[in-house]
């Protein structure tokens, strides 16, 4: 019978292979996109690749009024950041409220989850009609933001439920007995401990808002968000400018994360290594 230590190592290697294998699987389309973003001026968004050039990056940066991705990208980024922060704050508030099991918290749980359940297109259409009747102008920063949060909050909320689920209340009780008020205990003990979950919720808020287009279909004014502009590209040529944009977004994300890690080297290490 092979030694139990070897079996442990085999399990570790197997799970490691699964993780790295899946990571590669996750990055393959991104690398394909990256490769095709350097195709020649006659190249398309599929193989075979025709020539190699920076044509599409230049095309992306050249200002065009209707097909220009930059303003919608800026709007989508701003919207995603706002959604990210609001999702994190509301998710923690909602999860914290759930911990108090207030009357109606069961129904509240389903209310928040309804955001994911209601199909996006019709929710957007419904919101657009209602705001039309109420005379509220449609704009990407108001009506679209409201609808986006409805979609991103449930994800943040469920993440916080997972984090609070096996949360060790004695740590908070320790804080209280040491004379900290409920608020200080929350701020100094609870929050740091659930920080990974809060970051997770914020990431959800950002990613899901940045990609959302079903709900934005109707809820935007004439200034549209990035996904809508990309979706409209289907009607004309699908240019590799899309891939150039995608590759740039990935590179920028890598740089942003790299610098964030460098900045937070101290605290990030501390937060993630605190063993409960």
């Amino acid at each position, binding site marked *: 019978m092979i030694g139990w230590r070897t079996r442990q190592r085999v399990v570790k290697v197997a799970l490691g292979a699964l993780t790295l294998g899946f990571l590669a699987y996750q990055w393959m389309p991104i690398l394909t996109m990256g490769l095709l973003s350097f195709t020649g001026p*006659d*190249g*398309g*968004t*599929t*193989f*075979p690749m*025709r020539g190699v050039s920076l044509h599409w990056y230049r095309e992306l940066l050249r200002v*065009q*009024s*209707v*097909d220009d991705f930059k303003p919608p990208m800026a709007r989508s980024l701003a919207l995603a950041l706002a959604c990210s922060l609001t999702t994190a704050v509301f998710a923690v508030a909602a999860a914290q409220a759930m911990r108090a099991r207030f009357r109606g918290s069961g129904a509240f749980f389903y209310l928040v989850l309804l955001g994911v359940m209601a199909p996006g297109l019709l929710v957007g*259409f419904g919101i*657009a*009609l209602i*705001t*039309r*009747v*109420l*005379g509220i102008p*449609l704009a990407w920063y108001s009506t679209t933001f409201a609808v986006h949060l409805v979609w991103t909050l449930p994800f943040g909320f469920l993440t916080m439920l997972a984090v609070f689920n096996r949360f060790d209340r004695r740590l908070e009780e320790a804080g209280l007995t040491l004379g900290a008020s409920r608020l200080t205990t929350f701020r100094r003990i609870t929050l740091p401990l659930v920080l990974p979950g809060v970051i997770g919720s914020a990431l959800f808020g950002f990613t899901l808002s940045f990609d959302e287009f079903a709900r934005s*279909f*109707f809820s935007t*004014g*004439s200034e*549209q968000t990035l996904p*809508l*502009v990309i*979706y*409209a*590209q*289907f*009607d*004309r*040529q*699908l240019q590799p400018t899309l891939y150039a944009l995608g590759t740039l977004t990935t590179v920028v994300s890598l740089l942003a994360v790299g610098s964030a890690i460098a900045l937070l080297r101290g605290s990030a290490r501390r937060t993630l290594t605190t063993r409960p």
Partner: protein
Amino acid sequence: MTSTTTRRSLLKGGALAAGALALGAPARVHAQSKELNVVGATFNLRDPILQEFTKRSGIAVKPWINPSAQARADRIRVAPVDNLESGADFVKYAWEEKLIQPIDLSRLPNWKRATRLFVEGQATPQSPLGFGDNPGRLMYVDKEKTKAKYVPSMYQFDSIAYNPDRVPAKENVLSWGELFNPKWRGKAALYGIEWLGILDAALGMHALGLLKAQDLTNLTEKEVDTVILFLKEKKKEGHFRAFWKAFGELVNLMTANEVWIADGWWPTVMEVRQKGTPCRYAEAVEGYRAWAVGSAISATCKNVDGAYEWINFWLEGFAGAKQAEIGYYSPVDTYTKYMTPEQVRKSYGGEGRDGGPVERRNARVFVWNTKPKNQEYYSDKWNEFLAS
């Protein structure tokens, strides 16, 4: 039926709370506002056209672009819209839903120069009747043809697009039945919108003698059943590689050699060729499936004069020439002012362009893109096909 009554009937029937909209509705006469809300798609609200219009009229265009024709029409319900760029099928829908108001053709001097296809519905008395939502017959409100639901500004003919290396075609002539030739199993693609997919299938079955239908664009329930049965068999055989719903999807399918034969139109063929994959636009034996996109004026239009100026601009010729560059035709012949004779020969004359000169095409329009009356039945059966 004056425009005010249309707006009032919209209030009564259309808007959610009549009171609120009445509040929102502007006074009849107002200053020439410097903005025009235009709803359209990426293939007509193109950069050079918008910039030229603003340069000439001083009116800034606020475009709302969406690939979904239904969403474009419904935009009028939820936001301020002045002009709606739409095909004849969705103009019919918008008119029935009282979302648009009649256009006084007398305010459009250039419309007098429209080709016969758009005045009589037939290019010549002998050419086929052109079943379906034929703009030439559908667009006029009154018998005297002085009022129109919309004014076509560009039109196109769908036919069979094929990869000549894979699919042989004598003198570039193919029948719609070729789309269902078992030799191209797994390499064919049809239109993914249910009523247009069924229309393609009907054209093919008609060509193969498998369907006797009085009007291919408005099939009876029994006729729809036979078409769907046929499509289900083809699907079981794995005949269709994919369906497409937008220009970009079809181009990708053909460029990537996923598909060798599909119903397509000249701009897609040009794009596929430019991406380096051989592609040709066949002359359809039975005739073309045509469609015309034009401008309608929204019932809640706040800048009616601006809206007319926008339509006149499209008929004036500059836009026609610009759209000709990417392969679309203009119903009025004012484009010649902005194109060299050589450019005119290459686009309208059919030189170096599959399918011959525009007159020959106008005369061979077999059907127009149409939204059938029994839309529900089409959707039910199409879903049956998807679920099979």
